[in-house]
């Protein structure tokens, strides 16, 4: 099951991250998870929100460059070796991970990891084969 992620282009400029978050706050859009990838010149803010289409709309209206794409959210046992077990499943199927980020939900025993690969369908198959728990969008947003 794939999950929609919103990415926002951020110029390396004071207060720019605040402006994005402020737009979302004003529109009462809650953020489930986020990560920032940064280089010397620019950054990419990646967000998981319950209503990605609405978030994209308000951000675009606010003048931001936004892209929507699919990622995979999985449950990883909150113990040493939890994540390496997952990655092993992907590596065995020769699937490259572009990036990933993790978060822990209050109501949840396990950690949640968001993974972006070049081949999401192949990754889903590999994860299923490796008996990794993949979250549906509803499960993810409901956390």
């Amino acid at each position, binding site marked *: 099951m794939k999950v929609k992620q919103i990415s926002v282009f951020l110029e390396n400029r004071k207060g720019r991250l605040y402006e994005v978050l402020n737009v979302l706050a004003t529109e009462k859009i809650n953020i489930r998870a986020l990560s920032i990838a940064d280089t010397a*010149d620019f950054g*990419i803010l990646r967000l998981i929100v319950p209503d990605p289409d609405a978030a994209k709309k308000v951000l675009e209206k606010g003048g931001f460059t936004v*892209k929507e794409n699919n990622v995979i959210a999985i449950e990883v046992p909150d113990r040493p070796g939890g994540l390496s077990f997952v990655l092993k499943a992907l590596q065995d199927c020769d699937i490259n991970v572009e990036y990933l980020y993790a978060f822990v939900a209050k109501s949840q025993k396990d950690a949640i990891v968001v993974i972006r690969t070049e081949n999401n369908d192949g990754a889903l198959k590999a994860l299923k084969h490796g008996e990794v728990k993949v979250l549906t969008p509803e499960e993810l947003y409901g956390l």
Partner: protein
Amino acid sequence: MKKAAKENSMIWNKQAECMPAGERRSLQLARLKAAVKRTCDAVPFYRKRFGDAKIKPDDIKTLDDIRRIPFITKAELREGYPFNMFAVPMEKIVEVHTSSGTTGKPVVTGYTRNDIDLWSEVMARALSMAGATEKSIIQNCYGYGLFTGGLGVHYGAHRIGSTVVPISAGNTKRQIDIMLDFQTTIIACTPSYALYLAEVAEEQGIDLKKLSLKAGCFGAEMWTEQIRTEIEKRFHILALNIYGLTEIIGPGVAHECPEKCGLHIFEDHFYPEIISPETLELLPEGEKGELVLSTLTREGIPMLRFRTRDITALHREPCACGRTLVRMERITGRSDDMLKIRGVLVFPYQIEKALLEMKGIEPHYQIIVTREHHLDEIEVQVEMSKKLFSDEIRKIEELRRKIEKKIEEAIGLRAKVLLVEPKSLPRSEGKAKRVVDKRQL
């Protein structure tokens, strides 16, 4: 005779516009000699100039001798504000116009009765290229007033006998109503205003294809082939390029014929040369450089070797339209924008062209030049577009390197590309600041 020529080919003045090259050169030389003499006799500035350069009007014996005459610049013209550069007494001046004066005191140009006659003639030639006849309805959206655009087109339309609608600039809603109700066939305005008109008309639900419009004379600002294509597609018209400048006469120095292979300069009245803006040497035909113009017949304010700062190239191969007039390329830049980076000449248009060749990139950019450790560095800021954005750093970095490579191919120098957010750079309307030179030289 003029009437027959019009019906046959829409060449307004076949005798002048299709004159054999040799014959024209003789005419130019005779006119140049007279212009030099007249100017030196009447204008102290030129007299002193010639004296300083140790030349006399009689030294101009061939057209090539024009090179001995020193250049004149806009700054020098300004010093003559308001009427010191005039070559006739004020009672002979029947009209004055000025440049916009955005960079200081405006340049004032004065017209004698014969100058107005000359202006009408060259503008009649220009409008005829766009197909204007007695039957045409010309909507003139260039501003009337001190700006030369409005009245220049007006006089040309009168000379032809077209119906001119002197609506002037602005009031877009009324422009569209008039265009519909009067069944305008030719429009004269800036290319950016044409696109704005199209946008507003479309918003009002007007089908632009249903207009009677057949052609447009667009100028008074720099534009591109892409903009031409867009205007032609949206209005279903022939979009032609008009060129002129206040210092020479106003609009009507050159105009494109429907072959669209450059603008024919009315060189029996305005003598063109191309020089290197750096060495000031004359450049061979076809090479890009700064356009220098001399007026051959103007009386009010003659101009000898005026540096226009406009970058173009001249071509003399025969044009399919039958005119033998030299053609100038579309203006692609200003020599004032020219940058010298690590000894290499760079024009912003080279970078713009490279960017436009890449799909998905908006042509909004800014060039920042700095000097660090005695070495010039050039940074090009390019706006990220929705189409090019990716959630992966790797892909954006790839894009950045691709743009850098493209620019390097265009200018022969490595430039650092910085991707910035959309709409964060100044827009090209008006006088956009494309170059920020931070070097302390």
